[in-house]
């Protein structure tokens, strides 16, 4: 009896974790792909490099992950950053335009300068967003929409309205190269995640972010420098979006300012939300954000693995995302009797209700 009890309570604890349903969905998708297409789950060494569908998924999800990490921090402060897709385009345009104009695109120093310039441009845009939001007190949705609308114009100004295509092996390697057999984007993603996690979880920054998101005025009164912190977060988000743009665009070496990062802001928000962070600010989950990014990438791929017609791709994605959201809905779980019932001393009226509904 007691063994049963601890097992169920363990299952309950796990199933109540905010990452439970997203992880279940991800693993279920992978298993389904593995059944439909044997070999999907294999990871092999080809020419000394890791190779396999899961490696591809991880590599492709780095773009989403970088965007979503920045977005997650912004959302934690109760804000939102709609400009990330446009920032990707700006950063890539700046970098590739520089390489295109440089004397020797193949030199490592040129590539490093290009990366620095692209990231600097992204950080400037992030600082501009932060200035509008924290400095002038404009609503984040509107403030960042300015770059969403105008950002591609800025990127097009750098590329002269054309698709700048250029060559630089060192720059290309940040998107398609390998470090000790591991795809470079994956290494970049891992390093960035570790840095961000250390920054927000090993310092007080994470807690301060949450306090701003939960109640800006109260946190300010408690002595939190909410203005500076909010500003910093937008710069960080811009920087990460710029990095995402470079990683995404580097394999093709083509600065397509019109299309790079198109609708990525929504994908980033989706990854954050799937990962269990609420849009109204406060508590956030960096690990959940990674799961969200992996789910989005897996969905794109699963459509092809399942031999679904391309027309049904968006519908398929929508169904899975809706399913995850419904599974994670607290109200629904409450009605099904899955939700943790507040342990309030007193007449046990509330626990009966869900039972009736379920029955």
């Amino acid at each position, binding site marked *: 009896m007691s063994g049963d009890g601890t097992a169920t309570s363990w299952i309950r604890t796990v199933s109540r974790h905010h990452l439970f349903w997203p992880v279940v969905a991800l693993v279920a998708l992978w298993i389904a792909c593995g059944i439909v*297409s044997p*070999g*999907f789950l294999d990871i092999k060494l*080809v*020419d000394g*490099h890791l*190779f396999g*569908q899961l490696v*591809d998924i991880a590599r*492709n999800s780095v773009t989403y992950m970088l965007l979503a990490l920045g977005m997650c921090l912004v959302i934690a402060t109760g804000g939102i950053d709609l400009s990330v897709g446009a920032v990707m385009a700006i950063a890539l345009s700046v970098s590739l335009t520089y390489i295109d104009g440089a004397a020797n695109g193949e030199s490592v120093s040129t590539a490093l300068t290009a990366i620095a310039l692209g990231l600097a441009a992204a950080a400037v845009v992030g600082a501009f967003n932060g200035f509008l939001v924290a400095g002038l007190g404009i609503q984040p949705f509107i403030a960042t929409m300015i770059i969403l609308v105008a950002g*591609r114009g800025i990127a*097009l100004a750098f590329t002269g*309205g*054309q*698709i700048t*295509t250029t060559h630089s092996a060192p720059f290309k390697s940040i998107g*398609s190269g390998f470090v000790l057999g591991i795809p470079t984007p994956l290494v970049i993603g891992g390093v960035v995640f570790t840095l961000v996690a250390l920054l927000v979880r090993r310092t007080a920054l994470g807690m301060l972010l949450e306090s701003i998101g939960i109640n800006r005025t109260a946190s300010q009164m408690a002595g939190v420098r909410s203005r500076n912190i909010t500003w910093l977060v937008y710069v960080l988000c811009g920087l990460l979006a710029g990095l995402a743009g470079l990683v*995404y*665009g580097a*394999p*093709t070496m*083509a600065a*397509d300012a*019109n*299309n790079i990062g198109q609708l990525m802001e929504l994908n980033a928000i989706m990854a954050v939300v799937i990962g269990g962070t609420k849009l109204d600010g406060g508590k956030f989950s960096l690990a959940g954000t990674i799961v969200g990014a992996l789910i989005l990438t897996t969905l*794109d*791929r699963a*459509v*092809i*693995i*399942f*031999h679904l*017609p*391309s*027309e049904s*791709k968006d519908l398929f994605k929508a169904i899975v995302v809706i399913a995850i959201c419904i599974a994670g809905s607290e109200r629904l779980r409450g009605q099904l009797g899955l939700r943790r019932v507040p342990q309030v001393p007193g007449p046990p009226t509330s626990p009966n209700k869900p039972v009736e509904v379920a029955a």
Partner: protein
Amino acid sequence: MVSKKMRMRGVAAAVAVLALGLAACSSDSDDTANDDTNATQDSGDGGDSGELIKVGFSQLGAESGWRTANTESVKASLTEENGIDLTFVDAQQKQENQIKALRDFIDQGVDVIAFSPVVQTGWDEVLQEIQDAEIPVVLVDRTVDTTVTDPYATWIGADFKSEGVKAGEWVKENYPDAKIFELQGTLGSGAQVDREAGFDETVGADKILGKASGNFTRAEGKAAMEAALQAYPDMNLLFTHNDDMGLGAIEAIEAAGKVPGKDIVIVSVDGVRDGLQALVDKKFNFVVECNPVFGDQILDAIKKVYAGEDVPKETIVVDATFDQTITQEEVDARPY
């Protein structure tokens, strides 16, 4: 509270007045625009080559190297020396930008409107407005699907379907037993729909294992191919709706340890320089050209339409095909 409410009302009233003012302005400019059109048309009828033909050209954007070459060709041909006063507007691949540009052209009273529609549908209203303003339309490259009767004077462009057919015929002749995977362009675009239809009809639907969209871009072409190599292990021929997706697919094929052009034969449409270079490098096997350099034909059509001469409803740009016998010199001579 009251003062706040009053202020709100004041703002609302101001907005309303502004809106009225704007409406008046736009109707004014409409009138003058029509007058202008009449004026230039009158002088055009009476005079001769001294007058420049005012042309509004709305390009859909710069989504590919092909489009860039097309834009350059248009700009190089529609010059003042050739008797054209060109207003060129780039729509950045947004239909609303393009509709706005077309309305601006009406307001400016241009003599001829030329445009490459970004999508096929949704043009009814603006085409009707153009027709009401009696401005002839030259459609470039892409077609429209509209309820407006006689919406354009002439259409110049490539026949996407025949490109698909040409690719299909080559496959049928050289690889009759091919197991084909198809990388589609942006779903719903004319190039995707027609190339797919032409190709599928020619090779037969049973030869095609599967399809996926790569949105005409390298990055998405690569991602789709990575998945397709897993999903369709029997595949030995790739038909891609443009070169860029094919170039992305090459990376995916090589990463999987296969040889593009050998293990997986690649047939593509477009013929941009990078694509032809892949032919020289034996990574592509066959490329159907989609020739973007037809500014001279557009110029010719605009002049004829302006002069009121009879023009054929359709002018098809001649497309060549290339296989691996192409030389490096030919590729280097490619302007785009």
